């Protein structure tokens, strides 16, 4: 049975998709099991019956392509993981955005604050404000990366709780810091009076991601036995 499961997993695991992969696994395994029983009833020994059942199923690479073609575009998108190249593109875009902010005209709110129409606690020179704004945006991007790391942990075959905790805390701290840096750059004060409210509002994203993660974890529980299979050989 395990031999057949590994064969199925070798076919299904590389497929880009998510929720329909469990169905593929179960159906292909049920099929292989039936084929195996048929071959055994026909007089083959166990090893030969397993080999014949696999052969009857067809070439794994071709079958994988056919199964991949049956996965909807939406599901393919949901099942896409960032490659190293994707990460580099994301980081490059982040740096580009920060550069644009660094050379962009001074925001209107800064100009009006400098003109005295803004009630500010701390005066910040426009040049410093711009640097703080860039730092705020970079920190925000960092928080997105941490949130991504946090979320993807829920999709791993073996979830690493210390990493989930570290990524979650780092993401939340970076998110808070970025909000206050941007606020400070634009208004000259870090909303110290509203600190509690602002921090509370920042809990919406973590709460959403964490609850989605838990739902994902529960939904993927039936897949656990599949994802733990070693399919290297």
């Amino acid at each position: 049975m395990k031999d057949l499961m590994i064969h199925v997993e070798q076919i299904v695991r590389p497929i880009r998709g998510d929720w329909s992969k469990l169905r593929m696994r179960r159906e292909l395994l049920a099929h292989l099991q039936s084929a195996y029983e048929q071959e055994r009833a026909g007089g083959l020994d166990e090893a030969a019956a397993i080999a014949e059942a696999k052969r009857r199923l067809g070439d794994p690479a071709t079958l994988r392509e056919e199964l991949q073609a049956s996965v909807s575009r939406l599901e393919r998108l949901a099942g896409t993981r960032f490659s190293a190249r994707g990460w580099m593109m994301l980081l490059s875009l982040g740096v580009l955005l920060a550069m644009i902010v660094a050379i962009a005209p001074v925001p209107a709110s800064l100009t009006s604050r400098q003109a005295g129409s803004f009630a500010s606690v701390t005066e910040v020179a426009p040049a410093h404000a711009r640097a703080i704004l860039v730092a705020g945006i970079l920190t925000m991007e960092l928080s997105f990366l941490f949130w991504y790391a946090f979320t993807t942990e829920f999709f791993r075959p073996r979830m690493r709780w210390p990493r989930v905790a570290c990524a979650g805390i780092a993401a939340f701290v970076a998110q808070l810091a970025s909000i206050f840096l941007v606020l400070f750059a634009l208004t000259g004060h870090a909303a110290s009076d509203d600190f509690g409210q602002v921090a509370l509002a920042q809990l919406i994203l973590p709460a959403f991601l964490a609850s989605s993660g838990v739902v994902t974890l529960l939904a993927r529980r039936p897949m656990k036995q599949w994802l733990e299979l070693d399919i290297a050989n």
Partner: protein
Amino acid sequence: MEGINGDLLRGHLQTLVLSALRKGDAHGFEILKRLEAAGSGALQLKEGSLYPALYKLEAAGLVKGAWEKSDTPRRGPRRRIYRLTPSGGRRLDEARGEFQQFVTVIGGILGATA
């Protein structure tokens, strides 16, 4: 009889599946057995190809699948039972007409008796 392999069957597999399901609800392995029986052993189908065809048919609403009940007296993983939907039945009738026309026209060109 010479076998009909997967390349020749491509494009017809979904219709064949619909036809097999007209005989009654069935899981994948049973559909395959019906096709083999109907083809008198001439269909040389790679068995795994059946499932992508079933998924596409289900996505198109031509068949409907449901997992067999867990109290079924059978060892091994549960199977998904497929049934033909009314639109699947209509599609099968259309495909039959199209295929008849194809056989008549191409058979006429090739000089075969249709």
